[in-house]
C-alpha cells in the first residue's frame, strides 16, 4: 500500500481543524431545533393536568387545588409530547440542557450548577434551575 491510498486524508487531518471541541472550556453551540429541556410559563397555565396525564415517563405532576406545577428533570426525556397537548402554549423547548449534578438530591427539587460559570437565560426561578448553589 503506497502513500496514495490514505495520503489525502492524512494531509487534510494534519492541516485542518480538529474534530473535537474543548468542552467545558468552550461551550458547544447548539442548533435551533435541539431538544434540551422544557420551559414552563406560569402566567398562561390553567392547571388542566393534560400534560401530566400524557407524559410517557410521569415526569410532570400538577396539583389543581394548590396550583403547583412540578417537573422531575431526571425523568424528563424531552420528547415534547407535553408541548403538543398543551392548549395554552405554556410549555416550550429550549436548547440548553440541565447541567450534570454532583450530589444526591430530593427528587422534586434539585439545584443545577452552571455550564462554564454562566447563567442560562430565561430559566431563573424555574423548578430545578435555581440560582443558589447547593
Amino acid at each position, binding site marked *: 500500500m503506497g502513500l496514495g491510498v490514505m495520503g489525502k486524508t492524512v494531509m487534510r487531518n494534519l492541516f485542518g481543524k480538529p474534530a473535537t471541541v474543548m468542552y467545558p472550556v468552550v461551550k458547544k453551540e447548539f442548533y435551533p431545533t435541539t431538544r434540551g429541556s422544557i420551559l414552563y410559563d406560569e402566567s398562561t397555565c390553567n392547571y388542566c393536568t393534560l400534560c401530566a396525564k400524557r407524559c410517557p415517563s410521569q415526569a410532570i405532576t400538577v396539583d389543581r387545588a394548590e396550583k403547583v406545577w412540578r417537573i422531575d428533570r431526571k425523568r424528563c426525556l*424531552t420528547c415534547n409530547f407535553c408541548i403538543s397537548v398543551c392548549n395554552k402554549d405554556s410549555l416550550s423547548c429550549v436548547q440548553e440542557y440541565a447541567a450534570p449534578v454532583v450530589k444526591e438530591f430530593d427528587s422534586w427539587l434539585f439545584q443545577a450548577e452552571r455550564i462554564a460559570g454562566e447563567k442560562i437565560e430565561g430559566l431563573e426561578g424555574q423548578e430545578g434551575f435555581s440560582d443558589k448553589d447547593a
Partner: protein
Amino acid sequence: MGKRTVVPFGPQHPVLPEPIHLDLVLEDEKVVEAIPSIGFVHRGLEKLVEKRDYQEMAYVSERICGICSFVHGHGYCETLEGLFQVEVPDRAKFLRIMWGELSRMHSHLLWLGLMADAFGFESLFMQAWRLREKILDIFEQTTGGRIIHSVCKVGGLWRDVPEDMLKKIVETLEGMEGELQELANVFLKDYTVQKRTQGLGKMSAEEAFECGAMGPMLRGSGVAMDMRGLGQSGYEHLKFDPVVEQGGDCYARTNVRIREVFQSIDLIKQAIGLMPEGSIENKVKGSPEGECLVRMEQPRGQVIYYAKANGTRHLERFRVRTPTFANIMPLLNMLPGCDLADVPILVLTIDPCISCTER
C-alpha cells in the same frame, strides 16, 4: 486428537459494542464448537404494553436500541397504521425514507469503525467515526436529537423539514462522497485488511438462506433479498437494486455494507428530488383493533413487527423480531473450524446489536 479447552468470550470484550457471551471449545487453537448465552440486556420492553397506551408506546419502541432507533419508531408507527388502515401523506413517507436512509448510513459507518478497531487499525476507526459525526449533526438539526429522534407518530410525523435544510443535506452528502471513497479504498485494497477478511466465514447461498441469515449476511453470499423491494412505505417511487456480492466471506460482506452507504446517498437524493408539498400528518382517531404484521429493512437485515389490539387504548401484544436474533444461528455455523484470533472478526461480521435482540 489434541487437548480441549473452553475459553469464555465476552460479555466484556474490546470489540463488542454490546454484551454477548460465547463459550468456545478449542482444540489446539482451532474452535470446535461454540455455545451462546444471551440475556444481559433483557429489559422486558414488550411487557410494557400493559402500562403505556399506544401513543406512548412509540417512545418505548424507539428506545429498544440506540443504533437503529429511528427504524424501530418507524416500524411501530407502520404497524399501528396497518391496524387503523390509515394512509400517511406522501411528504411524510419521503421524509421517513430520508431519515431511514440516513440511519442506515450512520449504522454502517459505525460498523466500519468497529471492524477497523477489531483489526487494530485505530486511525481508520477514528476516520470512519469522524465522517459519521456529519450525519449525527444532520439529525440534530432536523429532529432535535442525535440518537433518539422522537419524530414518528401514528399517522405521520411530529416535525417538518424546511426547503433550505433539505438543500443543505444534499450538499453535505455530496461533500462526503469523496471522503467515503477514500475510506472504502483503504478497506478494500489494503493488504492487511484483505489478509484478515478474505476466505473467513464462507457461506454458500443455500446455507445462508436456510439457516435464517438476514441482511448483508444474505446479500454477501449472492442472494438478492432486500425488504425495501416489497414496494411499501414510499420505496415504490425510487429506483434501486439490492446490493449483492458473490464471495460469501467477510470481505464480501464488508464490500456490501460499503456499497450500501453509497446507495443510501443516492436514495436520499432521489427522495429529496421527488418530495411533494403538503401536510405531514393524517389525524388518527379512536382505538386500534385487530392484528398486523410488518416486515421492514433495518441496517442489519429484515425486522418483523407484530401488534394485536382489542379496541381499547392499550395494545394486547407487541412483538419485535430483530435481524440479529436470526443471525445468531449463522454465527454458530461459521465459528467451528476457525482460529481463536479470528473469532472477533466473525462475531462482528454479523453486526451484532444485542440490545435489539433482547429488548
